[in-house]
């Protein structure tokens, strides 16, 4: 892959409330400091993270906000006082004895772009804590490596890192209800209400990252590709973890491709098992039933099994009306959506407390997290695309590059450069926009139809056409060559004969 050097600049404001300033500060407040972190992906790709820190003490307004009782109130009160541009962080350091943070919690990350940190005595301890917080709220070495997973050697990356969706200009979210047995089950779901209530706020928030479209469908007589195993003990049917990869294939044929757009599709399937296979439970690798009865497929979507209780009396009317509990279903699907975007909230030290994002489903800093990763990924993609285009030109000399293709290439290069410089200045949002433009332009140049049909007449075929010329011409040349060889051999042998 092509060499990529990216410098990510994160502006961080560290605000000390009275009584939290560590004793061993090198300079009096306010002052600036810069910390760098090297993220090496491979030999030709290097990402440098540069945290530009401003240390200062609180203003009167901030002090008033920090005097609130709960961290949530503080977070809300601090919101209008801080730099709210994307990618920038504000960290408030509160005294070690402060009662604002609950017992045992030393870091509180709010809904927006700020965090509260309990002062930990020395400056060095504070620095480690600050580094942890800034990485959680912006990007970590693993999140960047996951974004550049194409460039990482196969073995080095954890399977989780390959789960994240590739950066794209848009995504289509499709909810499908699979009802394999419409004769017995008349399943109804209030998907319209559920989408408006649960999915739309998240998608609205994510619309900064990409375009989203949401739709749903009901598929009848759609069955899973695996026959579940009957378990006598629990008198239920089980799908074991190793058979899950085979579940999707037959369903996928029915899902219907997104003919009207080129964006990747995220499929979320709700499967209501037929009566002869219910209740149906998914087992994890250890054989224990999965609590949510759902699983996700990396870069594809998720499936949830929704068991319907068989009616007590056999005289119950057929079909049985089932109203799906959408809150339960959407909780699982939204968690899977977050997973697919790499916004998992696990793997954090216990002293961290994250504010729940509430109705929006996504905190501001999580959005930044996504933007950092996608910007880096876009830049890497553009570099790869343009490099392969250049390689193609090297390979086929007589390919014609039209003016519009050339201008797209120039625009892609200019956009990438502007994205890189914006990143180095710490302007995350404009950098992301520029990287998106670069991707659009480079893809348009690479997939231009004029670059295709010339491929079909390679040089070796031209050579084949002239075989009727070359073959008869080669015969006398080869014969005389053979004759020369024979004669030189005889010349060499003759002197020995003379002896």
């Amino acid at each position, binding site marked *: 892959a092509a060499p990529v050097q990216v410098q990510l600049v994160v502006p961080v404001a560290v605000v000390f409330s009275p009584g939290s300033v560590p004793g061993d500060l090198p300079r009096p407040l306010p002052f600036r400091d810069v910390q760098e972190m090297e993220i090496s992906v491979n030999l030709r790709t290097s990402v440098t993270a540069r945290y530009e820190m401003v240390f200062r003490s609180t203003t009167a307004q901030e002090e008033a906000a920090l005097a609130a009782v709960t961290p949530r109130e503080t977070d809300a009160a601090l919101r209008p006082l801080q730099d709210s541009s994307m990618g920038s962080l504000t960290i408030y350091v509160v005294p070690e004895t402060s009662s604002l943070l609950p017992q045992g919690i030393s870091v509180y990350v709010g809904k927006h772009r700020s965090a509260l940190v309990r002062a930990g005595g020395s400056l060095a301890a504070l620095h480690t804590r600050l580094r942890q917080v800034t990485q959680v709220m912006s990007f970590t070495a693993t999140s960047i490596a996951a974004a550049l997973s194409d460039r990482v050697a196969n073995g080095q990356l954890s399977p989780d890192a390959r789960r994240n969706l590739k950066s794209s200009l848009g995504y289509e979210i499709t909810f499908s209800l699979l009802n394999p047995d419409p004769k017995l089950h008349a399943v109804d779901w209030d998907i319209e209400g559920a989408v408006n209530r649960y999915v739309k706020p998240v998608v609205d928030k994510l619309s900064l990252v990409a375009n989203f479209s949401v739709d749903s469908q009901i598929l009848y007589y759609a069955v899973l590709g695996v026959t579940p195993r009957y378990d006598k003990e629990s008198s239920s049917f089980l799908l074991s973890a190793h058979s899950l990869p085979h579940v999707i294939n037959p369903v996928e044929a029915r899902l219907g491709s997104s003919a009207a757009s080129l964006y990747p599709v995220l499929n979320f399937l709700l499967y209501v098992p037929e009566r002869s296979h219910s209740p149906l439970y998914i087992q994890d690798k250890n054989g224990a039933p999965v609590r949510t009865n759902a699983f996700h497929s990396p870069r594809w979507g998720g499936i949830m099994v929704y068991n319907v209780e068989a009616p007590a009396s056999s005289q119950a009317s057929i079909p049985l009306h089932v109203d799906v509990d959408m809150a339960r279903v959407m909780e699982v699907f939204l968690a899977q959506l977050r997973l697919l975007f790499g916004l998992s909230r696990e793997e954090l030290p216990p002293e961290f407390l994250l504010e729940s994002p509430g109705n929006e489903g996504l905190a501001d800093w999580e959005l930044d997290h996504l933007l950092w990763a996608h910007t880096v990924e876009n830049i890497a993609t553009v570099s790869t695309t343009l490099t392969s285009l250049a390689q193609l030109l090297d390979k086929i000399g007589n390919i014609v590059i039209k003016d519009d293709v050339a201008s797209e290439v120039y625009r892609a290069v200019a956009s990438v450069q502007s994205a890189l410089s914006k990143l180095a200045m710490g302007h995350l949002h404009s950098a992301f926009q520029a990287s998106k433009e670069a991707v659009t332009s480079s893809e348009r140049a690479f997939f231009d139809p004029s670059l295709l049909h010339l491929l079909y007449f390679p040089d070796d075929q031209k050579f084949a056409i002239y075989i009727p010329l070359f073959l008869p011409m080669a015969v*006398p040349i080869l014969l005389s060559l053979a004759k020369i060889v024979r004669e030189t051999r005889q010349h060499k042998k003759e002197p020995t004969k003379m002896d």
Partner: protein
Amino acid sequence: RGMAAAALLLLLLVAGPGPRRAGAGRERRDALREELLLSPLPTGDVAATFQFRTRWDADLQQGAVSHYRLFPKALGRLVAALGVRELHLALTQGFWRTRFWGQPPLQAPAGAELWVWFQPTVTDVDKAWKELSNILSGIFCASLNFIDSTNTVTPTASFKPLGLANGTDHHLLRYAVLPREVVCTENLTPWKKLLPCGSKAGLAVLLKAERLFHSSYHSQAVHIRPVCRDASCLAVSWELRQTLTVVFDVFSSGQGKKDWSLFKMFSRTLTDACPLASQSKVYVDISPKNKEKELLEVTPPPTSVHEAVVQGDKKTYAVYDLLSPSLFNTSRSLNVQLKWKRPQDSSEMPIPVLHAQRYVGGYGLQTGEICTLIYNTHPYRAFPVILLETVPWYLRLYVHTLTIITKGKENKPSYIHYQPAQDRRRPHLLEMLIQLPANSVTKITIQFERALLKWTEYPPDPNHGFYVGSSVLSALVPSVIAMKDVDMEQSPLFTSLFPSSDGSSYFVRLYTEPLLVNLPTPDFSMPYNVICLTCTVVAVCYGSFYNLLTRTFHVEEPSRGGLAKRLANVIRKFRGVPPL
């Protein structure tokens, strides 16, 4: 006052969560109706026409979030994304022989036919049309992506919207036919996938590819159009009709007998209705021919008998309602059988009022003539017909040679729309409104010249010939018997697809045969032959020249001499000259 406010608040509270919670007993906003019409044809063949009608009380054009239940998502998104108002796609293998089989319920030309009305909001209709045909070719695995400006026309009179429409600006219409398209299993599978029940339940279980394509005629179609939601027509519903017509030649496969059964034709029987369908019926056409009743017998006894006037003819249908529980009481499956009580004399075949025929005349590879014969067999009524001809640009029509002759006299069309072709850009479009006198044959001829194509423009196997799509006849045919005011929704199949102006006539759209025209075709191996020949000559010259330049010449002492020398010496001996 306060009481009233409280009451209002209460009312609001009740009304607020009302619509959402009504989910369980929610009025279905979409409905599916499936029908199968089995009609014995005069020649002894049997036509089976399936129709699956999905109606959705929603406006597809609003876009945004869409939630599909019975309506297929792939088509719904297409309609919403590209601003389609009406879409008609038909894929057909074989030709409906109107003269012998009678008026078809819904005919389609051989190959692929696509016609689409776009919304007035669509600014670039050509771009939307191109995109639409590409997407449809993906959905139906058909070569619709070959639709381009060279085979697309905008008819002015022939294709009116069949659904709800205000204003008919024909610039929003596009029509194309690909007569070369071959229809096979790979087109049937995606078509079946659009059905809510797939081929797992209901009438669609009969749709087995190995039987359907073992037939004389196979036509599958998709029609999407907006319709009125109710009688007041204040809101729009969308209707999707998936139809499939197949004609089985039971006469030759049934040892000369015209008896048939569902199992014999489809090698399947019906066991249940699609659980999602609100109507599921099988109609068998048992109309008595020439006044004699009781000519045929259907088993098992039908649920009811329905009489209707369809296409100007009184028809009697035996109806099997798959949703009625009594039908599957006695046996678990339904295998409709039809037996003729005595052999039918085929001499008295009813001839349809309107039929047509088309062929290419002339000889040689330079010019030719397209002849169309239109028959009106109505004994006393004349009626007009709209003829639409689409001819590819490589047949250069001479419009001045257009002649229309009826009963030996020239027949002047009352309306002509002609759009000349442009080479490699667009085809000829000729639309005419012709009056057909009662009991007459009208012959329309037009001469053409065959163009020479560039060598890359020839399709594979160019000596097979070039197809010219069917011409389209649209007419309001006067019916022989007066039509009563029948409930259109009740009558089977297509009576509700085409609008009926009044009781005395009915709408018919017919397609003629596609034509196969030979164009002057060069010998495609010639360039390679030339290369081979030239190369060989060059190589031979090069070889001898090379030999000449590289060979060293010695003077060789003759040892004994060759045959020529000995021969010369013998002659010299005779002549008394010393030998060589």
